[in-house]
């Protein structure tokens, strides 16, 4: 951990005794690499940059042909329109953002509260057919949402959960619990069971031992897992568009998509709403960037 990649592959000795030919070929390759990476980055980043640009362009510049890359007039009107309705009240988009915050937050909380103890139990106890159970839990994630959305729609209509925030919260929690269990099981496995054994001999009950001695060690793992669940719920589109219809309930992804499709599309507003929508995800992804690779692949399935 203490040794960074730079230290580990220190170029020091190589620089002292360079082999001229190898050096030239090495530099040639790195120039090619750099060029390819720049091209790739441009392709990957262009939509994001264009979105960012459109969100701060005046409408005149947004629709300009040929498109204006650099000399456009900067305005924050679109961002104002995201939150404020033309009549000065609260805009429908701002309501949908609030809905997204509530739905993503509560469903993540629910998934964490249910998933962490389950992960602990699967890690610590000898459960009958543990592997089969865990596989079953994982298998609920195999099917894409689109496959199950029709039956869920029908069931929700029966029980009156259609077009309600609670319905979305429940379905997102149901999708996030398996993920939470699998990812948290990896983190719990890393904490030696002996801490709890020792605590129980000290005189604590099993639950106290978990709460006082194991849980504090799991906090970083819980945070990372919760952020993943949060991002999933925040981004989710298919269930949201099928199961909600009114502006009061609709979350941001279908609401933003709903901006497109009239006779004229207010691209400035779409871009500004998309920027606002993407920001929390970028911030959270930055917070858990170490786990984005290691957490998902290693932490969840090791052992």
């Amino acid at each position, binding site marked *: 951990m203490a040794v960074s990649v730079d230290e580990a592959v220190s170029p020091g000795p190589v620089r002292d005794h360079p082999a001229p030919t190898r050096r030239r070929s090495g530099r040639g390759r790195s120039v090619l690499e750099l060029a390819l990476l720049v091209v790739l980055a441009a392709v990957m980043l262009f939509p994001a940059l264009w979105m960012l640009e459109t969100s701060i362009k005046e409408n005149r510049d947004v629709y300009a042909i040929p498109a204006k890359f650099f000399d456009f007039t900067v305005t924050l009107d679109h961002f104002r329109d995201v939150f404020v309705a033309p009549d000065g009240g609260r805009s429908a988009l701002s309501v949908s953002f609030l809905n997204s915050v509530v739905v993503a937050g509560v469903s993540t909380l629910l998934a964490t509260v249910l998933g962490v103890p389950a992960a602990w139990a699967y890690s610590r106890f000898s459960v009958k057919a543990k592997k089969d159970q865990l596989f079953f839990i994982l298998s609920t994630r195999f099917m894409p949402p689109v496959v199950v959305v029709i039956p869920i729609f029908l069931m929700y209509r029966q029980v009156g959960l259609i077009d309600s925030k609670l319905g979305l919260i429940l379905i997102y929690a149901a999708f996030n619990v398996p993920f939470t269990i699998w990812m948290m099981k990896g983190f719990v496995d890393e904490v030696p069971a002996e*801490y709890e*054994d*020792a605590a*129980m*001999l*000290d005189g604590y009950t099993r639950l106290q031992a978990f709460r006082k001695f194991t849980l504090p060690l799991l906090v970083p793992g819980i945070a990372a897992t919760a952020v993943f669940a949060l991002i999933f719920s925040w981004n989710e589109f298919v269930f949201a568009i099928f199961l909600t219809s009114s502006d009061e309930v609709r979350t941001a992804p279908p609401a933003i998509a709903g901006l497109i499709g009239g006779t004229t599309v207010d691209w400035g507003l779409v871009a500004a709403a998309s920027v606002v929508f993407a920001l929390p995800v970028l911030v959270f992804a930055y917070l858990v960037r170490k786990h984005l690779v290691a957490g998902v692949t290693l932490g969840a399935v090791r052992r």
Partner: protein
Amino acid sequence: MGTVAAHGLRKSFDKVQALDGVTLDVPDGSFFVVLGPSGAGKTTTLRAIAGLEKLDAGSVHLDGRDATGDTPAARDLAMVFQNYALYPRRTAYENIASPLRARRCSSSEIAAAVERMSSLLHIERLLQRRPAQLSGGEMQRVALARALVRSPRAFLMDEPLTNLDLKLRVEMRTELTRIHRSLGATFVYVTNDQVEALSMADQVAVLQEGKVQQVGTPTEVYERPANRWVAGFVGSPPISLLACHAEGDRLVGAQGWTLPRPRWTTAEDGRALLLGLRAEDLSVEQRGDASLPGELYGLEPLGDRTVVDVRVGTEILKVKARPTVTGTQGERLQVTVDLDRAHLFDAGTGRSLSQAGR
């Protein structure tokens, strides 16, 4: 009071039978060592007594009362784990105080108890450190202090010295014996190190493959092993076992040698036997009437003595000799046997046939 009794403990993990009817009776105040090779079920036995392992069958009695279904907390035992299991986020002080906090002692009581323990174990300087800032020996002392800080029915120790270096291990051996004497408490101590068992124990239980092979004092276990496994596990260098059978007044080896038949054995003629000979009961230097012909196979100088490997046919005998002994490989020599101290085992059942006559 602090008696620990386990009766017919059975436990399997998947298809492995870890405990196969383990029965132990630990008297009050004794230093009771459970000795066995790794995988014998020692730790599982200890964890079953502590209440950390759910048993398939069997019962645990503490102070004569059935505690089989009790939680670990209710059993009022203290345990030292092999890897110490110190709480990583807490200071040494908080680790030692933990059993008292769990039992809601007042902070002045806790402070006094922690102070008493830290001076007993010489860890006063370490109290504000976290486990990551402690060396292996220091962690071991803190773990010991956490167990000793209250007065439970009995102390359970799971190979507490295994992870220490040799010098520290010898030191701690003496110290643990001293602590045991001064507390007068019951210790159940698990180890795979026979030196620890022989030097510290009042009673030794030799465990193998989930079964108790023998229970006795260290001397009994060493001098009168109940079977060939106990004989083979206890003693260093290990006992040499030679295949043979009795024939009239002689023992005839499978490798062709003959020895006078020991007076004490009652084995009938022709039964397949194993002759067990400890290194210190053999000699390449003295002459005696009972001797085996062999050739020098190797020398292992150990400082205070040299172990001579002598090949008799295809079997190797370990012989203890003075450190000055010399020889060349392949040299013919006679190994004198002290037959009064030899052991005979039934080759089939492994059971000792020596007990009766002694």
